[in-house]
């Protein structure tokens, strides 16, 4: 499982990377905003995207929309990890097709739980199809 972590704060990228490693993911790369992440994603090298919302350049919500509009990437699982906690924003992310939404500050347990849920759902969808 190759994961791309997108956040404009390097401290947060390192925290998420460490947590993902703890859960057992080893192949993790970083990008500091959507503009940097988008060409990386288009190479098709990633199986999972973790992104912040509020970033200079391209924000996470736009990156999510790009991903969902791309024929090869539209089913890529996306987890949003953000300080944006307004109802309308969460609804917008859900409508844009996000697979999970975590509000900062979060605990390692929350991240584990959301990852489990996302992968369980993907597993169920693949088994059904």
């Amino acid at each position, binding site marked *: 499982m190759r994961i791309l972590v997108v956040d404009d*704060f*390097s*401290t947060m990228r*390192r*925290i998420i990377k460490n947590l993902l490693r*703890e859960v057992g993911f080893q192949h993790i790369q970083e990008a500091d905003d959507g503009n940097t992440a988008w060409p990386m994603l288009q190479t098709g090298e990633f199986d999972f995207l973790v992104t912040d919302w*509020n970033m200079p350049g391209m924000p996470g919500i736009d990156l999510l929309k790009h991903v969902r509009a791309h024929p090869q990437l539209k089913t890529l699982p996306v987890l949003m990890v953000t*300080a944006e906690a307004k109802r309308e924003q969460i609804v917008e992310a859900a409508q844009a097709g996000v697979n999970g939404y975590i509000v*900062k500050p979060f605990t*390692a347990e929350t991240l584990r739980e959301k990852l489990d849920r996302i992968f369980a759902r993907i597993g169920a969808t693949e088994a059904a199809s």
Partner: protein
Amino acid sequence: MNAVARRKERLDRARALVASLEAGRDAEADALALELAGADQLGVELGRMTRELHDALESLRVDPRISELASNDIPDAREKLGWVLALTEQAAHSVINAVEQGLPVASRLAAADGDCPPAVREDGQRLHELLSEILMAQSFQDLTGQAIRRVIEVSGELERRLAELVQRAGPRPGAAPKNDAQRPGAERIQGQDEVDALLSGLGF
């Protein structure tokens, strides 16, 4: 409408008011009375606002503090906030560096073989949990950093608007604003090495 015409109109209304009162047409009298009083109040209010606006513009023109705020204090405050942002980021990275080195040590202890007393494994497990908590706590830097960036942005906007206002209100009388950072001796010393170099240059 000039002053004579205005006075005539008010006089006409006042006469109509007296006539309607004498005739006992109370509703009409009330409406006319309100009209007269309202027109008057509006005039007074407009006059007051004009005076206040004039005074405000005048005080901007003569108050060197306003342009000092725009050209000196706000940029200085923004620079200081940027410094807070950089320093907290550095500190958070130092903590994460230490945690990243500590976590595998804790994991090794937690998974120590049977020769080790069980307390070592328990301590290793506990140490691992504590290090994870320290790691998670560093997320403060992202959250406070976002807030600080926003304040820097807003004060930048405020600075631009104030500068425009000062420019529009006309040139300030008196001395040019002093830029604190350009004042001799006011520049920031970077780190202990520079302090030591400065002191040794002074014969300490």
